[in-house]
């Protein structure tokens, strides 16, 4: 591994203890994030994408949740072992997040200025006036017209797209090393989605911020990301560059996902492909490949044992018996 890896997640496990049993939301996820890289994490709902990133920030609600193992190395230090005070100086400062729903992610009772200035004063030690100037500058970068007038508004006076811009401005206001965007466009309509994605891409490129983009939209990752992790049932089943994943998907699940995207360039009369069945309930899952009941190419061994991750080339991994040795 090269030195420009800033965030390294190693074998992260996050379990939730429920009445029904142990829910292994994230079960042994590992990935590296390099400086300036945009990493996509793709998967169906409930595949553990969001929990992975909450765990990285140590934001899992502790009962019922539990980080059962693994390391999150940020600039050489393990975030999971940090005391709370120390990790608070990293949250929002070095690593910040954008949430899915901008309508609910801003405190409805506080002015935009209050919420932005609070963060900047907390982390950068600026006085309020400088912090306000900085906030206005960030809002301007995020494409809010006449930010010096809008900054004292309340969240309800902004539209969804504007709020997401505010969230982005807020998240980037401390020049973080890593920006975690958790489905940043899901709650927005399509015309705004493209603008917001363009904004994230543009701003992070300018500020040199690495991005983890969590989404279930393949179109979004295709346009945005350098590398892609595909998650299924709490594990990464395939990883590679965007070109590799889209050009030559290996895992049957990835193949299924890509086939189920409607395409404009191939006029067919066929029904749109869909992966049959439902994603599994990850409570008390046996040690098999969780995808085998839905898999067209399932082998006998798939029902017995989870496949080891096979490295096809550098940075190109698949966890499937089809590619593992000794099948």
């Amino acid at each position, binding site marked *: 591994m090269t030195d420009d890896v800033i965030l390294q997640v190693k074998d992260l496990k996050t379990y939730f203890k429920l009445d029904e049993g142990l829910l292994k939301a994230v079960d042994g996820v590992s990935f590296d994030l390099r400086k300036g890289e945009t990493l996509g994490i793709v998967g169906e709902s409930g595949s553990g994408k969001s929990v992975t990133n909450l765990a990285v920030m140590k934001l899992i609600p502790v009962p019922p949740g539990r980080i059962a193992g693994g390391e999150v190395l940020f600039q050489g230090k393990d975030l999971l072992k940090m005391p709370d005070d120390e990790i608070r100086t990293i949250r929002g400062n070095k690593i910040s*997040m954008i949430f899915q729903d901008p309508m609910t992610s801003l405190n409805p*009772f506080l*002015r935009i200025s209050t919420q932005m200035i609070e963060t900047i004063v*907390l982390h950068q030690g600026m006085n309020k006036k400088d912090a306000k100037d900085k906030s206005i500058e960030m809002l301007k970068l995020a494409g809010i017209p006449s930010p010096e007038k809008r900054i004292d508004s309340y969240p309800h*006076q902004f*539209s969804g797209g504007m709020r997401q811009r505010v969230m982005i401005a807020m998240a980037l206001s401390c020049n973080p090393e890593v920006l975690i965007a958790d489905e940043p466009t899901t709650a927005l309509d399509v015309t705004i989605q493209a603008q917001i994605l363009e904004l994230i891409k543009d701003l992070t490129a300018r500020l040199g911020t690495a991005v983890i983009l969590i989404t279930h939209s393949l179109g979004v990752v295709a346009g945005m990301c350098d590398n892609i992790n595909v998650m299924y049932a709490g594990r990464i089943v395939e990883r590679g560059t965007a070109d590799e994943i889209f050009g030559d998907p290996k895992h049957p699940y990835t193949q299924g996902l890509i086939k189920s995207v409607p395409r404009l360039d191939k006029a067919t009369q066929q029904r749109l492909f869909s992966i049959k069945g439902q994603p599994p309930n990850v409570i008390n899952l046996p040690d098999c490949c969780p995808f085998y009941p839905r898999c067209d190419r399932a082998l006998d061994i798939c029902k017995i044992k989870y496949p080891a991750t096979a490295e096809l080339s550098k940075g190109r991994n698949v966890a499937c018996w089809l590619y593992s040795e000794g099948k």
Partner: protein
Amino acid sequence: MANIDTTQDAVNEFNQYVKPVSLWADAWKRLRRNKMAVLALWVVGFYFLLALSAPLLQSAGILHSYTEQIISHQNLRPSFRPAGELVIESLELRIAQLEENLASREEDSNSTYNMATGFDFAPAAEIEFDDGEVDEGEAALEEVTEEADDTYYGPTYSDSVVDELERSKAEVEALRGSIHTDPQHSKVYILGTDDLGRDMLARTIYGGRISIMIGIVGTLTAVLIGILIGSISGYVGGAIDNFLMRFVDIMYSLPYMLVVIIIMSMVGDKGRGSIVILFVAIALISWLTISRVVRGQIISLKNSEFVEAARSMGAGTPRIIFRHLLPNTLGVIIVFSTLLMPSFIMQESFLSFLGLGVSAPQASWGTLVSEGVRGMELRAWQLFVPAISMTVFLFCMNFLGDGLRDALDPQSKNRG
């Protein structure tokens, strides 16, 4: 729906200036539309102003002292005329009555039905049940029983009546002489006086001061303790939540009035009647409900995304509770407080009525009412003045609380 709301204008991506409208400004706008709530707000404001400025008014001479007792001004009825005139009037009425009495007695000395004349009360007149009066009644009885013995005239009867007549006449003369020189007699008691000659208006205003103060202090302590316990319990959860809420359960299960009465009697004579003890007793138990309310609110808010967002920005627990969560519950707390305040005033009145509240010469609406009840048939104003003052205030507080609830409830935004 043309006149609603500026928030519509806010949703535009053009370079237009939009005036920030806070939730509070919005709520205020809605409150102003509610006529009853506005009226209640004015009345409550007037009460507060009066209560606050009472010492000023008194030192400026507009308001009489609430402790000064003028024995000759006992039980004067509400009137705009000076006290001296009222006293003379009532004495003259009494004299006329006595004279008539005496005359009729001499006239019908042999009649069988002469008993009632001594008890002929003029409705507006002041009749004091002093010794002379009792003697007179007894004498009358005596006379009836001894009617058979036609020749006997009880000497006590005429003597006492004549005595009183003389005394009253002398008093009237003395008053006539001093009415223009003695400033006491030029006092005007708009709302009458009580049985110790104290001004009812001043006593009601000062009573209101104490009652309102108990309401405010009780509400404040209840809200402060309630917010603290409720927010910690709600946000932290787990074992702490369990412990605190079971404690609240135990406190709930104690009969409230009984506990207060026990506390009030436990502190003994030293603390009895002190307002501080009353505050403590009321505040001790009053925070239970509000802590439950706050806890519920916090629990429903703590998983909302803006809290998660604040945490992802590096905010600590106290900051999240006090900066992000509590402002969101403030609406509920304000509404609850406005409804809590009347209940404290009621409780204080109840305790004072039972003789466990504030003690003389201090007064609260509760003690005034309980004093007024004693002479209710004869001196109704002593009951009605504090009772009506209190009722109007409580009524207005409830209306205000109702109005605030509607105004702060986002669901009612587009109604009305």
